[in-house]
């Protein structure tokens, strides 16, 4: 590469850098905050309702998470969740509704490859790693706790 070519290359890199749209980080963070916050507020409403009928805190938590997962799936089916995710970014992805969205969206997307090897196999393409590493890290920390407290046997 001679000098002229090198200069041209550097200038091109510069142009690419200028032309690439920079994400508006403050706005993105604010949108994620509002979106995630609103989803959690809906979660709080459901939690307060389920608290009346469920006997324990763990069960109330389980039912609230499941109800939000059901809502996330329905919102994905109706196409509303895509709209939300476009605006809310991580605010839509991080709540369990977003976890549910990854499952439903993959199921819808891969259905055309068949029900067994398409939908069935690829439904957990993103949610699978979440479960695997959630369980692995949970297993390790619980094992440590059990060993340290002597409650293993």
């Amino acid at each position, binding site marked *: 590469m001679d000098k002229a070519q090198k200069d041209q290359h550097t200038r091109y890199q510069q142009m690419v850098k200028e032309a690439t749209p920079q994400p508006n980080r403050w706005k993105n963070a604010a949108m994620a*905050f509002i979106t995630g916050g609103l989803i959690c507020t809906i979660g709080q409403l459901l939690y307060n309702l389920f608290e009346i009928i469920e006997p324990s805190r763990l069960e109330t938590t389980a039912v609230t998470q499941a109800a939000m997962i059901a809502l996330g799936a329905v919102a994905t089916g109706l196409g509303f969740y895509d709209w939300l995710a476009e605006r809310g970014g991580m605010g839509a992805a991080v709540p369990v509704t977003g976890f549910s969205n990854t499952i439903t969206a993959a199921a819808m997307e891969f259905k055309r490859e068949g029900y067994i090897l398409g939908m069935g196999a690829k439904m957990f393409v993103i949610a699978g790693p979440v479960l695997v590493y959630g369980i692995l890290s949970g297993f390790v920390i619980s094992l440590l706790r059990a060993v340290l407290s002597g409650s293993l046997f």
Partner: protein
Amino acid sequence: MDYLTAFLTGGAICALAQIIYDNTKLTPAHILVSFTAAGAVLGGLGVYQRFAEFAGAGAIIPVSGFGNSIVMGMLSELERLGWEGLFTGAFEITGLGVTTAIVFGSLMAVLFRPKG
């Protein structure tokens, strides 16, 4: 009041995820996995429950709360069954949500087509 704390704490967790996403090369899948694992570890250390007592749904609804539920299931089953609980407990609380996701996800896939 609990609605406001849920909004603020849940929003803060999501904003943190967005800041990580915008400033690193991590994909949303990486972030979901890390937040779930972090929730599980903090749950095992007993930190997450204290946070959840204060934050309510703001701690339960993000995937970190899902990770915490995995550990809570393991620890409660550990108490009930002994070591077997480490293996049966992961879905003690989260099983309800995972099965819901499979049932509703499949139903939606049968009923609707993806747009575009």
